[in-house]
């Protein structure tokens, strides 16, 4: 990924807005044509985000697996294979076309920049945006903590063996310990942030300026055009099936 690519460098709030526009447009239509048009356009702009298709496929593999799983399930339980094939194809296209913009946006956006843009350009409350960002930093610690907690249970002589009920009880008790630790850590982090004057009512300034310029507006406009085109082609081809009605 190259952060200097023309679309990767766009304002994170603009990327999220563009993704939201496409999602909204594709959710209202049940036919295969609209998502096919949108997906084609999305795949065409991937290089403008500085992403390789291979990198994107690696990032999106959980999506690929779940879509294939959904399609396979539809096939297996189908009475009329031909009719189901059409709706399965439509479903797969919709899932890809809806999810891909989000995957692209997050793959090309630094979390700090995103929080900055949400506060400065999208006017989200600073307590929410920066608080979430700070909490996000602690997430990797939870994985290591979870491993240690479970090892500590083995050290205490507690294991579930093959008994599913004992396993569930052990899981609940380990989750409780993890939660206690996470709350303690969160409380300490909140105190440290308060001590540094966070959200104390004083007007805040920004060390990293996020600007929302013409190019950012153009990205959102482009997304609106793609969404409109997809729906227009679908209607013109007589395939349009609205979600409601």
């Amino acid at each position, binding site marked *: 990924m190259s952060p200097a690519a023309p679309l990767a460098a766009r304002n994170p709030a603009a990327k999220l807005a563009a993704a939201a526009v496409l999602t909204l447009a594709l959710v209202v239509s049940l036919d295969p044509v609209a998502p096919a048009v949108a997906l084609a356009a999305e795949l065409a702009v991937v290089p403008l985000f500085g992403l390789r298709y291979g990198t994107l496929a690696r990032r999106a593999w959980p999506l690929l697996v779940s879509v294939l799983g959904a399609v396979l399930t539809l096939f297996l339980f189908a009475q009329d294979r031909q009719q189901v094939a059409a709706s399965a194809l439509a479903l797969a296209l919709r899932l890809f076309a809806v999810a891909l913009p989000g995957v692209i946006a997050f793959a090309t956006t630094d979390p700090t920049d995103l929080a900055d843009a949400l506060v400065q350009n999208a006017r989200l409350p600073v307590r929410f945006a920066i608080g979430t960002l700070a909490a996000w930093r602690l997430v990797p610690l939870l994985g290591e903590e979870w491993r*240690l907690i479970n090892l*500590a249970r083995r050290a205490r002589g*507690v*294991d579930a063996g093959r008994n599913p009920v004992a396993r569930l009880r052990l899981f609940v008790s380990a989750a409780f310990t993890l939660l*206690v630790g996470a709350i303690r*850590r969160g409380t300490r982090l909140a105190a*440290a942030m308060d001590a540094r004057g966070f959200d104390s009512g004083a007007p805040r300034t920004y060390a990293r300026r996020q600007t929302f310029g013409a190019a950012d507006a153009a990205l959102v406009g482009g997304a609106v055009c793609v969404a409109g085109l997809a729906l227009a082609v679908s209607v013109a081809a007589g395939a349009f099936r609205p979600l409601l009605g």
Partner: protein
Amino acid sequence: MPAVRLRGFGHRHAGRRRWALRGVDLDIEQGERVALLGPSGAGKSTLLAALAGLLPPESGEREGTIEVRERTGIVFQDPQSQLVMERAGDDVAFGLENIGTRPERIWPLVDDALRRVGFPYGRDRNVAALSGGEQQRLALAGALVSRPGLLLLDEPTANLDPDGARLVRGSLAGLDDTTTVIVEHRVAELVPLLDRVIVLEPGGGIRADGPPASVFARYGDELAADGVWVPGHPVPALSPRSTPGEVLLRQDGLQVRAAEALAVTGPNGAGKTTLALQLGGLRKPTDGLVVATAALAGPDATKPPHKWRARALAGRIGSVFQNPEHQFVTAKVRDELALGAGDPARVDELLVRLRLDALAEANPHTLSGGEQRRLSVATALAAAPRLLILDEPTFGQDRRTWTELVGLLAGLRDDGHGIVAVTHDPDFTAAIGARELPLAARPLEAVRYCVPPGDDSPNLRSGDPHPYPHENARPQPVPGATSRGEAQ
């Protein structure tokens, strides 16, 4: 007018019966460097939080007055939960943004603060890639950047290894003009930086106040008896009364014996905790084998410890984790011990022995740090294991808990238990007369040992028969020797 003035100040945390702090009269002058001492529970951290303005009216009940003339900055104990941003420079800038500093002034101030604490990297450095000592330096820069008139430090080196603590003290030595109040368990190394020592009296008021030398000369014995670490009051050593006994466990060049204490030392990242988990039968060794002898393994001698059932493991090898809370599985102190002990008489004996009898009905998560540490050791002892493995047992403990732990472990050692402790604490290693196993900083994945000279005991060599014939251990190619696989 002094920088800080307290008159009859007290604070009681919401929901508590006892006052955390009461009747404190105190002036701190501009530019003074003050250490706040006192036994556990004397209210040191509460006083620091009050000075930092972190005790809002809804946090409890207050009496008397507190005046703090200047803006404050505070650094806490745990580096990981006080850094907010991902990049070092952004984190330092955070405090400036919050107080509305003009954007064009922010980065020069950030650079200046990083320089003052001796931060060796650029602003773009990811904070997750820093050592604990470097993270604390960064936290210090974040507190200093808004030019506080009063710097507050709440055990800033308690979570660090000796190198990290040295880094932080080095940074503090460079800040000569800032009024500073510091709470720290181990003050000996800080004394050269201090002008004044204030000792809080548990239950209210101030016990002693003056220059470090005169306070320690006059109140040293009394403070040491109360659990305060006082410079020049060495802790008694409890050398082993007998020679090391039979081998209980071995891994490559390492032998763990009965009636012997082994201290695993070395810098952070050398793999000490990993080694403790492997010896404790909690993690599969990545390299080589952990072999339990028949003396330890009993009927399970044909299996390596990491394959034992949990209950069998707990009865042979007890592990004490660095964070006691990871080990608690019940809602009562008594139940924690009953889980391993079975026999109620043994539960009562352990409760008394570790001074937990008054807390038998309490929830383990509500205990103080020292109490939690004692309980975690007691739980590991409950199933009467022959070998005890502890990860940083003395971290952040006051002198009293520390002395009790050393006494307990030395007693276990003399009763024929094997003790392995991962530790950064040279006093602890010396006090229990432990054999030291220094781990070198780890260049690759593998944990490497430097076997101390004189350890001539027979090790597991490649030509020996495989200890676990049914295990498919990865053969280890040794030049000029048959591999273990071929020895079968």
